[in-house]
């Protein structure tokens, strides 16, 4: 079920009415959340519900065992069981075919004739998100950062909580379990803000879908396209992935607010970042903080082997997105950017410039960061590594490309406007949402217009990009 479809509207309407007017006590509400979330998940494929339940049951049991166990070797073993189970499920469904294909290719390079068996497996939607969410519980319990939770119903409801189940934001156990414990009451202020976020998310998703065609023209065309169309495609993809993903996150957060729950922010104006490190503090915040807390810090953080730890973290971040060399290279690329930034900041001149906050310095840093991020998106979107490299060459060698067709400048301008609008919507929501929510004469017409825009032009057949991760 996609958030921007009539079917989800029907589902959520029924759920909301039952949640708000019928199931008023905690336990029935937990059951409603669990059953509703499983119905939501079954909208994709009911066959993978047992996998979700398995992840929940294993980690709940590990949590209970960790509570009873004091011996460190045994605690480590229990934690390993949780991690192996979750990553095993992830590896099986997401990386098995990729691993076999890569091994086969490597063997062929070495001169052996090997053909990799292909396992016909469907990637369960949301598996990358809920396995990470589940692992965060056992790791936090192991680190004694949170107490063990009792109540399998509550735990499973937390893991399957439908607003964020299939494409995040990645909720940590410490963020959602206490809320399910106390069952917060929705407030009118929270509800208004939720409606603002839902509308903003729908509008951004609509704009993102409108950018899809120029993206396909640049990345999927059988023959090279003109320079303007190539750059337009890259710009459009930057807008598309941001509008799509942040739109989904906004809707998820908004839905949570309608029910009284606080879901953490996932984006904070990433295209206004002043450096690669700053970009990762603003983009997919819940994933980057998860990787920081559970991978980067576990490997030693900045206490030892800083650059190695940064590269490992970013590589895993790339690999998390998909079983493809393009994602691994994308992760490695951002790892190199982050490492190089850290190295350069050891030079006093560079450190001074990096700390300079006058408008010219900020503009330069932002534009440079934007360019570097756009280059990275080429790897993210391309179907193959060779396709990505070809596109990168095309972006910087116009002589080899066909001449621009008549409509290309107009399409480029429209894409730039679309990109700017997506960024502007976030700016408005982050900076001025409270002021807007106090002015009813402005708020409701704006929301009505936003809903109208999304209904008029929203192509409900397009899934969200991050569903494939």
């Amino acid at each position, binding site marked *: 079920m*996609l958030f921007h479809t009539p079917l989800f509207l029907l589902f959520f309407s029924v759920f909301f009415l039952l949640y708000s007017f019928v199931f008023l006590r905690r336990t029935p509400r937990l059951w409603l959340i669990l059953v509703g979330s499983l119905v939501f998940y079954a909208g994709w494929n009911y066959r993978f519900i047992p996998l979700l339940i398995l992840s929940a049951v294993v980690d709940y049991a590990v949590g209970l065992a960790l509570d009873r166990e004091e011996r460190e070797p045994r605690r480590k073993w229990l934690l390993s069981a949780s991690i192996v189970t979750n990553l095993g499920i992830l590896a099986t469904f997401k990386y098995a075919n990729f691993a076999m294909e890569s091994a086969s290719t490597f063997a062929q390079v070495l001169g052996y004739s090997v053909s990799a068996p292909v396992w016909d497996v469907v990637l369960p939607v949301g598996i990358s998100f809920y396995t990470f969410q589940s692992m965060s519980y056992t790791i936090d319990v192991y680190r004694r950062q949170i107490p063990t939770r009792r109540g399998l119903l509550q735990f499973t409801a937390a893991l399957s909580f439908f607003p964020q189940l299939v494409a995040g934001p990645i909720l940590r156990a410490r963020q959602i379990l206490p809320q399910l414990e106390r069952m917060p009451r*929705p407030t*009118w202020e929270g509800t208004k803000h939720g409606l603002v976020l839902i509308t903003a998310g729908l509008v951004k998703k609509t704009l993102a879908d409108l950018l899809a065609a120029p993206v396909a023209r640049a990345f999927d065309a059988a023959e090279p396209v003109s320079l303007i169309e190539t750059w337009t495609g890259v710009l459009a993809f930057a807008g598309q992935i941001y509008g799509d993903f942040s739109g989904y996150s906004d809707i998820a957060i908004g839905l949570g607010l309608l029910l009284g729950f606080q879901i953490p922010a*996932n984006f904070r104006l990433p295209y206004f970042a002043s450096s690669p490190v700053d970009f990762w503090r603003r983009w997919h915040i819940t994933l980057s903080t998860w990787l920081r807390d559970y991978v980067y810090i576990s490997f030693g953080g900045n206490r030892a082997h800083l650059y190695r730890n940064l590269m490992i973290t970013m590589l895993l971040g790339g690999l998390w997105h998909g079983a493809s060399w393009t994602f691994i290279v994308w992760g490695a690329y951002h790892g190199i950017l982050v490492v190089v930034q850290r190295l350069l900041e050891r030079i006093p001149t560079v450190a001074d410039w990096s700390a300079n906050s006058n408008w010219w310095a900020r503009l330069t840093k932002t534009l440079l960061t934007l360019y570097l991020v756009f280059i990275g998106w080429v790897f993210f979107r391309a179907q193959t590594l060779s396709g990505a490299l070809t596109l990168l060459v095309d972006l910087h060698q116009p002589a080899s490309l066909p001449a621009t067709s*008549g409509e290309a400048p107009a399409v480029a301008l429209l894409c730039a406007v679309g990109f700017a609008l997506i960024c502007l919507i976030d700016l408005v929501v982050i900076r001025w949402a409270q002021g807007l929510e106090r002015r009813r004469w402005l708020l409701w017409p704006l929301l009505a217009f936003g809903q109208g825009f999304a209904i008029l032009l929203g192509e409900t057949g397009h899934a969200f990009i991050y569903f494939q991760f």
Partner: protein
Amino acid sequence: MPSSTSSSDPVVASSELGTRQVALRAVVAGVALLTAGLLFTRCQTYVLDWVLLEDTRLREAVGLLPEVAETPGPAALFFGSSLVYVGFSPAVFDARLEEHGVDLRSYNFGFGGINPSIQRVLARRVRLAFEEQNRTLALTLVEFTPFQATEARARSNARSREQSLMMLATPTDILHLSLESPERAARTFVVRYLRMGLTAEAMTQVFGGLATTLLSAVLPSGAAALELPPEEVQAQREVQQAGLGLLVGLAKVYGGKPDPWDPEFRGELRLIFPETREHVLRLMQQTPSAFQSDLENRIRCCDIVDLGFDDALIDDFIATVRELAAISERVEVILMPKNAAWVKNPPEALARQSEVLDRIQRETGVPIADFQTLPGFDGSRFRDSTHLTSHEGKPEFSRLLADHYAPALRAPPRSVYQDPMYPRRPTGP
């Protein structure tokens, strides 16, 4: 870690409202916003009704099917693509048949932007309408457009097919679809009943096309556009002006926007009036570069030269013929005249086409009349790489069809196999 929303934390619990009051307000606000959004969309669909001619034409024709089926007297249907829409005149056809002593009322059921999968659904609606009235058609001609049944067309036409299917869905179709895919059924319901059959994709095409056209007129053009010689650029400007003049002229004739499927003209694209004749004649004189551009577009979207056929679309076409044969005394598959001056199919493509036609004939039992290479229909009878001109090609072809079918129509209804037809493909192996 404290959680936060994507703005600074909202003021929490400053209201004294209870949970139910907040929920009630949320429901009211949600319903109001959705209603406002839907009203906004409905207004836009009314406005765009005039712009999205192909979709509106399809919807209006389906809406008028009961009236067509109820009309007394022998009737004929010419069912096909935009080639039929542009290239067949029921008035000329019927008048010519009358000269041969045949009384018949024909209808133009040609629609642009479709392919056999849409035609199949439309044919079913036609069948249902006639069965409901317990009537049959005296003659049904089903046009097979080779380039509409290619793999390239299946890929390029995916959205339009989905939209047309949503537009043509009946309540029973939606019910059956809900068992297969609740998501698609809900979407189909919304498009069919709340959006007047117009999908967001159609809206996007219109607004996007409009924005691109307006901006292209203002922004510097790409280098490719500058390669045209000055006389071609001038000729293109004149054609654009003629197009605008035609729209203004038609508005004067009809006192507003013309009906995309006009029951008075029985679905004919009637363009030539005193107010519009001059503009139509100018529009029919497209430049060689325009022909070339149109051909390249057809190659890209539909593989018109090499004809890589799509089996599923051929299956749909065969099903279309069967649907219409069920309510017709006489039915024949025809191929419209081809602009051989521009569309030059290699022998392999013609061989593939021949195989497909053999298959259609074999599986439907319906004869095929191939008018692709009619004498006298050279490049001058075409306004682009595929469509006949309004002032010469259409009336001439309509008269030819009448002359061709008049002998069979004078005779009592019987198997069409027994009637001498020209030109005609041999039936059977």
